[in-house]
C-alpha cells in the first residue's frame, strides 16, 4: 500500500470527526465574540446594538473583576497545594502492602466519582452546617463554638470541598507513578546506605516530578472553571468573597441578564487561562520533556 494513498484515506476518514469538532468549537466562540461587541441585555430585548469594546471596558473596570480574579488564583493555588501535599503521602501509604489494599484504594478514589453538585450539597448540609452539621456536632462535643463555615471562612470552605474532590485524582496519578518505580533502584539505594527519608528525597521524589507536573497541568485547567461548588454552597458570597471568574460571568449573564458583558468576560477568562497555561508550561513543562 502506497504511503500517499494511506495518508489520503486516513485524512478523508478523519475529516468528518475533525470537522464536527471544529464546528462545535468555532460556533460558540464566534457567537461569543459577536455578543461581546453588542449591548445585549435580556431585560431590554430588541435593543441590541453595536458598542465596540464597551463591554470589555465595563467588565475589566468592574471592581468585582479584580476580586474574582484574586479568588480564582487563591482557589487554584490552594487546591493544587493541598492535593499534591496530601496526595504524595496518601499515595505512599496506598503503595504499601496492607490487608484489603484494593478496597482501601477504591474508597480513596470514590470522591472523584461524586458529582460536584452532590458533594457540595453533602458538605454544605451534612458536614459544614453550623446547626446540624457533623463538624458542628464534633465542635460541641468538645465544648467549642461551631464554626459557621460559609459565613466565617467562605473561600476556605470552598477550597476544602474542591480539594476533597481532586485529592483522589492526584493520589491516583502519583500512586501509578510510584508503582512504576523500579524496585532494583530502591534496593540499590538501600545498598548505598540511603535511609528511608533519603530514598524518598533522592529517588522517589525525582521520580514523581513528572506525574506531579501532569497533576498540576490537568487540575489547573479544571480548577480555573470551578462553578457548581460555589453555586450550590455560597452563591459567590458573602459579598464577593467566593466569586471566581466563572461565577462572575454567570452572574453577569443570568443574574444581571447582561449577555454582552458576560460574553466579554468569557473571552477575558479565555485569555487569563492562556496566560496561566503559558507560565505553567514554562515553569513545570520542562519536566515533561523526556
Amino acid at each position: 500500500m502506497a504511503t500517499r494513498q494511506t495518508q489520503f484515506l486516513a485524512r478523508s476518514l478523519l475529516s468528518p470527526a475533525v470537522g464536527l469538532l471544529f464546528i462545535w468549537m468555532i460556533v460558540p466562540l464566534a457567537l461569543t465574540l459577536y455578543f461581546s461587541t453588542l449591548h445585549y441585555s435580556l431585560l431590554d430585548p430588541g435593543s441590541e446594538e453595536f458598542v465596540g469594546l464597551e463591554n470589555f471596558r465595563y467588565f475589566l473596570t468592574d471592581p468585582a473583576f479584580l476580586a474574582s480574579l484574586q479568588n480564582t488564583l487563591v482557589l487554584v493555588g490552594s487546591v493544587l497545594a493541598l492535593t499534591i501535599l496530601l496526595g504524595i503521602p496518601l499515595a505512599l501509604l496506598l503503595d504499601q502492602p496492607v490487608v484489603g489494599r484494593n478496597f482501601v484504594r477504591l474508597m480513596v478514589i470514590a470522591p472523584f466519582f461524586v458529582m460536584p453538585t452532590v458533594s457540595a450539597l453533602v458538605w454544605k448540609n451534612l458536614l459544614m452546617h453550623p446547626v446540624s452539621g457533623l463538624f458542628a456536632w464534633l465542635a460541641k462535643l468538645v465544648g467549642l463554638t461551631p464554626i459557621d463555615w460559609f459565613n466565617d471562612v467562605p473561600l476556605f470552605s470552598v477550597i476544602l470541598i474542591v480539594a476533597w474532590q481532586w485529592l483522589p485524582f492526584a493520589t491516583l496519578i502519583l500512586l501509578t507513578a510510584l508503582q512504576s518505580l523500579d524496585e532494583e533502584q530502591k534496593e540499590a539505594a538501600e545498598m548505598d546506605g540511603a535511609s528511608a527519608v533519603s530514598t524518598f528525597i533522592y529517588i522517589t521524589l525525582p521520580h514523581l516530578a513528572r506525574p506531579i507536573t501532569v497533576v498540576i497541568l490537568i487540575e489547573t485547567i479544571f480548577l480555573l472553571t470551578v462553578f457548581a461548588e460555589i453555586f450550590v454552597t455560597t452563591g459567590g458570597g458573602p459579598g464577593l468573597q467566593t466569586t471566581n471568574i466563572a461565577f462572575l460571568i454567570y452572574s453577569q449573564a443570568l443574574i444581571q441578564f447582561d449577555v454582552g458583558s458576560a460574553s466579554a468576560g468569557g473571552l477575558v477568562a479565555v485569555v487569563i487561562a492562556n496566560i496561566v497555561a503559558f507560565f505553567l508550561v514554562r515553569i513545570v513543562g520542562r519536566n515533561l520533556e523526556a
Partner: protein
Amino acid sequence: MGQITLQGVQKSFGPVHIIKGADLDIADGSFVVFVGPSGCGKTTLLRLIAGLEDVTGGAILIDGKNVVDTPPAKRGLSMVFQSYALYPHMSVRGNIGFGLKMAGLAKDEINRKVEAAAATLNLTPYLERKPRELSGGQRQRVAIGRAIVREPKAFLFDEPLSNLDAALRVQMRIEVTRLQKQLGTTAIYVTHDQVEAMTMADKIVVLNGGKIEQYGSPLQLYERPANLFVAGFIGSPKMNFVTGESAAQKGAATIGVRPEHLKIERDGGGGWQGTIAVAEHLGSDTFLYVDAGPLGMLTARYIGELSLHAGDRVSLVPDPARIHRFDQSGNALRN
C-alpha cells in the same frame, strides 16, 4: 578483607523452600561464580548475602562476623544489578557518588574518589551525562563504578552482562575479570551462562533446586564432576550419557563421555555405531549428532573440519581414560 562464609543458610518464601541449606567458604580476593538453571536459587542466595532478603535459618559470616541481622549498607558489600538500577535523574557523577554522599563524606573527597573510579573505567568524559544518554556498555560501567567507589569488602554481581549483546558481553567479561584481579576484592557473580562461569571464576558454585551440587575450580568441575547434574551442566555441547549394557561393563549405572572425548571413525570400527542425523560444520569444529539406535542421540565434537554428512554411518569410540562413571543415584564413582 572480604572472607565470606555461609553456614547452613536457608530461605523459604512461605511453604516454598528456595535455599535448602547452603554451606560455603569464599576466600578473600577470590572470584566465585554461582551458576545454575533458572529458579535454582542463585540470585536468592546472592540477595541473602547482600541483605536484601532475610535468611530463614543459618548464618552468614563476613570476616568472621555474623551479619544476618545487619542491614545491607552496613555489611560493606556493593552490588551490581541486572537492570543496572542507575538513578535516572542523576548524572554519572551523582550515581557513582551517591553511596559516598549517604555515608556523609565531604564534597571534595567524594569528587576525588568518583573521578578516580571513573578514570579506572574510562568514564571520565561522561561524568556529567545522564544514564539515558549512555550506551548499554557505558551504563554497565557506571553500575560497576558505583560498586567500586565504596571500596567494599566484596562485589556482588547479579547477572550483570545479560542485557548486553554478545560481542560486548565478551569484552565486559574480560574487563570485569581484569578489574577484579587489579583491585583484589572478593567477588560473587551470578550467571546462568556456563561460559561466563568457566571463563571468569576462580571457583564455581553449581546450584540446582536450592542445593549446592558442587563447589570447585572450573577445571575440577569439568574433569571431575561430582554428579550427573554437574556433568550435564558444565561443558558445551552437553556430555553424552549412556545407560544399560555399556555402562554395566564399566561397573556403573550411567557412564558419561564428553563430545570432545569421542573418537570418530568410519563405519566398521569398534565402539558405538550410528547414523549422522545432523552435521554442523563451523570450520574450527565439526559437531556430529549421531543417532546411535538403542543408545539414543550422541554428540561428537571434532576439532577442525571433517567431511562427514547427514546419513553417513560412523562409529564413536570413547576415550577410556575420560569416561565418567555414575552410580544409581547419580553420584560420581571414583576409582
